[in-house]
């Protein structure tokens, strides 16, 4: 599927005009992974945002002592990974691994994204509002998963 069509299905960019979306797309770099390839490692530095274009990834979290990691969720096309680091610049909160071949992601670096949001505050506002809504969605999802999962 064409990248613009994928990006229109990404909640983070909902509400952006075609022109604004083109500016975001101009920052994207494609990366391709095979099943079991690691995309991001928990506790490692890394501030880039990943948008899943094709395939699935699993998100796994290890305990504080670095014990066995547990897969907490799988993410499909249109989902994003790394937005927490984009906001708080902290280390990765989870390990992310491709579970399909191919898994294709679009990557936006923290620096490029921040620069775009600073020069175009409308994009910055829309994305930050959507990011807050996405975090709310995930929190609600976790609550229901804990109850029914």
């Amino acid at each position, binding site marked *: 599927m064409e990248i613009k069509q994928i990006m*229109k*299905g990404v*909640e983070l960019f909902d509400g952006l005009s075609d022109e604004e979306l083109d500016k975001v797309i101009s920052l994207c770099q494609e990366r391709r992974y095979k099943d079991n390839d690691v995309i991001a490692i928990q506790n490692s530095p890394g501030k880039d945002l990943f948008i899943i274009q094709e395939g699935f990834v699993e998100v796994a979290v290890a305990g504080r002592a670095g014990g066995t990691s547990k897969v907490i969720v*799988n993410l499909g096309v249109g989902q994003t990974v790394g937005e927490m680091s984009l906001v708080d610049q902290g280390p990765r909160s989870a390990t992310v691994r491709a579970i399909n071949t191919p898994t294709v992601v679009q990557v936006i670096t923290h620096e490029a994204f921040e620069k775009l949001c600073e020069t175009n505050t409308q994009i910055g506002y829309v994305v930050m509002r959507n990011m807050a*809504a996405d975090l709310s969605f995930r929190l*609600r*999802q976790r609550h229901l998963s804990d109850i029914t*999962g």
Partner: protein
Amino acid sequence: MAVYKVSVVVTKSDHPGAIVNLEVAPEVGKTLSLGNEEFTIVEVLELMPPRGDFHFLHVTCIPKNLEE
């Protein structure tokens, strides 16, 4: 273009669940595919009110082979 952003919980299985975008609203009794696996939807809830083109749903499902 409506997008159904769906939080999926799988019961009766060790599947971790998923978050996926669907083009068609999920319905109880229908099949949901996650990668190579198929599940039967047993419950659909609205997780948050819709905004723009996006609808936010929560789905509970069971593996297809455990369907009664």
